[in-house]
Each structure stands twice: as C-alpha cells, then as structure tokens.
C-alpha cells in the first residue's frame, strides 16, 4: 500500500505523534463507525510510515574533505584512520 500524500512528508516524530493521537481518539470510542474505520486505516498507514522512517536511515560514517576548489566533498570515514586531507 502506498502512503497517502497527506503523510508522505511527515518525520518519524510527527508520524508517531499523529499515530498516538489517533490511538487515543479511537480508544475514546467517540464518533461513528465510519469515523472509527477511517481512524484505524490512518493509524495503520502511520505505523507503516514510522517503521519506514526507522529503517530508511542509511548506515554510514562520512567525513568532509577539501575538494581542491575551495569546497568540501564527502568521503568514507574508516574507523582506523583518515586521509591527510583533513589535517587540521
């Protein structure tokens, strides 16, 4: 299922906040059945988004180095050492 446009830009934090508000609204038992169903579906969608936010971060450690033109470029940072370009 694709995430609806409403949610696609939410951060983990925002999605979790929204999800928790939906859970408590649903738990209050107010509103019509249709509203409860809609809340449930939103909640399922938000929980998927939260999972996605947790997993989509790419594991990497990078270091900025001078690119020779006065700008910076990224390079992998090895835990054993670092290239002399970063001498500072």
């Amino acid at each position: 299922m694709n995430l609806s446009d409403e949610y696609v830009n939410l951060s983990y934090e925002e999605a979790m906040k929204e999800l928790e508000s939906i859970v408590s609204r649903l738990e209050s038992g107010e509103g019509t059945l249709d509203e409860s169903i809609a809340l449930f579906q939103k909640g399922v969608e938000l929980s998927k988004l939260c999972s996605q936010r947790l997993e989509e971060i790419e594991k990497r450690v990078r270091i900025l180095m001078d690119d020779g033109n006065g700008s910076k470029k990224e390079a992998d940072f090895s835990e054993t050492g670092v290239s002399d370009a970063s001498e500072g």
Partner: protein
Amino acid sequence: MSAVFSVSDLNRYVGEVLAADPVLSAVRVRGEITGFKKYPSGHLYFSLKDKESQVNCVAFRGNAAHFSFVPENGMSVIITARASLYDRDGRFQLVVYDMEKDGIGDLFAAFEKLKARLEAEGLFDTAHKKPIPALPRRIGVVTSPKGAVIQDIIHVLSRRFPNFDLLIYPSAVQGQTAAGELKKGVEWFNRSGIVDVIILARGGGSMEDLWCFNDEALARAVYQSEIPVISAVGHEVDFTICDFVSDLRAPTPSAAAELVMPLKSELVSRLDARRGQLGRALLHSVTVRKNRLMALAGSRALMYPLRRAEAEGQRLDVLSIKLSHALARRIDTSSRRLEKNIASLDALSPLKVLSRGFSLATDPQTGSCITSVTQVTPGQQVRIQLADGSVHCKAEKVQAGRNL
C-alpha cells in the same frame, strides 16, 4: 639574660611561630617551578623562584593528586601553601595544597566577563533554544577526526541505533585556529542543510585547551545556527560558553551520542504497542456498536425504522470485510474474536427480522421505505416485503394512530 635553646627546641619553636602566623598558614605565591622531582611515594619536591630568590616547596601525594595539571620545570604557577620548618635540617619550606597555572585567573575573568555580556544580550535564552529532533536522519559532528572522541561517538551510536548516519566536519579542537574552524563547521552545516543536528565535540583538557569553545564569534555562530547544536566539550565539570549558548549541553562526547540518538529497540517496541492498541480499540468500538444494534433490533424493532437496521447491517458487513483484511496480519489473538463477531452479525440481517413476522412497506414508485401514514394517500400503490416474497397492494384507507 635570655634562655639558651637546644637546636631541636629552636626549630620546633620557629615551626610553631610559622604555623601560628595567619598570613603564612595559607599564603598564595607566584613563581616559576625549578628543580622539580616526583618521588615514587607520589610526593612532589621543587623550588619556586623569581628573578632574585627561590623557596623550597613540597606537595604531598594527597594534595598533588588533585592538581589539575602535571607541573613541569619552567612553568609559571600560583601555589597555595602553608609555611613550615623542616625540623631535621632547619630548612624553611612551603607545604603546597593547591597549584594553578599563572594566567588562569585572567582567563577565568575573561570567561566570566564574556559570559555575562552574552547572557545579557540574550544568547543563552531558553526561549531561543531549538528542540533536538527525536530521530535525526543525519547527524553532523564538528570535531577532530583523530583520537578517542570520534571513536566513542561512533561506538555509542552503533550500539543505540545500528543504521545511523554520521557526517564529520574535521576541525582542530585546540590552539589558535580551532575556534575559527569550529565556527566554519557550524556554518558549513547550516549552508548545506544536510544534517538534522550538529554536535560540537572535544575530549577533556585543561582550561587553556578548551579555550577555543569560549570564542565569541563561535558562540554567535552557534546562536544563529538554524540547525540544533549540542555541545559536548571536556568532562562533566567543564563549562564553556558553547555549553551555555548551544541548544543542549552534553556532559561528554559519549553522552552527546546517547542524547542525540534514541534506542532503536525502544522505538520498535513502542510502535508495536501502538499497533496493538489500534487493533484492540477498533475491535472494541465495533463490539460496542454491534451490541447496541442488537438491542435495538431485538427488543424495540417496531419503534425504529427497519431501514436503519438494514443499512447498519450492510455497513457492518462491509466493515467486517475491511476489518478482516486490516487485522489479519497483525492481530492473531483478536482474529478469533472477530470471526465470532462477524458470525453473529448474521442475526441482524433484515431477513431474520422479516421471518419473525414483521414486514416492510415501500413505495414502489420511489423505492423508499414507508415509515409514516403521511407518506400514503388512498389509492396509492404499496409494496409489502415479507420474508419469502412481496405483496403489491393498493391503499384503501389511511388511518393515523397505533392500532396493532
């Protein structure tokens, strides 16, 4: 005639005079260290000299252990000491309690002055502090790429959240150029906008070593940063201007890594808990409504239009299909209860009600339910729906009032 002292008595007497003197019992002396020797016992022996004179000093192990630096020959220091006479050879000496580097007082005064000025200007205002994101997608750190600090940060981040994303802006963290480089790091991250949070990190050191973090221009860059900044400088006891102006102060670099990245396992279990709540809340909500509806349909059907029961029944059918899709994967324990609930929905079917002898009158022209005598005029066609078929009738007479 005055009394004749023995040598021992004389030395003891002089020692007592020195000890009783209010100035000499806690005197601060400025000078340069010379002839420094550390004994295996841990006691330190040295002399303090200036251009004309020198004086013997001893720092016993217990006091020496608390010095904030290791003394060396040639260092300018200020000691706090009491004067004493070493009985055995009648030698005057200072017993040192504390030692600080000369010039620290000036540094400290400068620090306090800058701190007061920036505080008055509002740079430390809590209202200006930005919240640290709950889950930074990418973390920027300005620090030395060498040494233990960056390794500690990487180690802690890996433990808390295995798929973290860290970008290092390498910078000197002590010396003349350090403040400028640190400032450039903060500014570079702000220009590029590719991190969610910035950590300024440095390991422990002397007050002079940490001095670059008391730089006014750096403080202003931190204040102006659009990206939240965590300062993580030195040890828990060290405070710098950066600590006050940053959005969050971490006592150490490792602590900064703890603060910046949540424990992934905790986030995952929190999410699981919310999913469970979601499923249970919906099921509960359906059950409550079903029970309400059953009560209506069972005991007070006549008082309520049958159409409503029919409509609700249909919605429940649709709902039960949706529910079984949505819940099937997630809520194993609940699904048995759900099936039971769906089965009992059958009892609400309009057919069941009709089979008990009730019937439904509709207008064959519009198809709508007839729920009031005002909807019928004599001579009008009326369709009566029974459990096993329908009867098409013509209204002969319309009479208001209940006459069952």
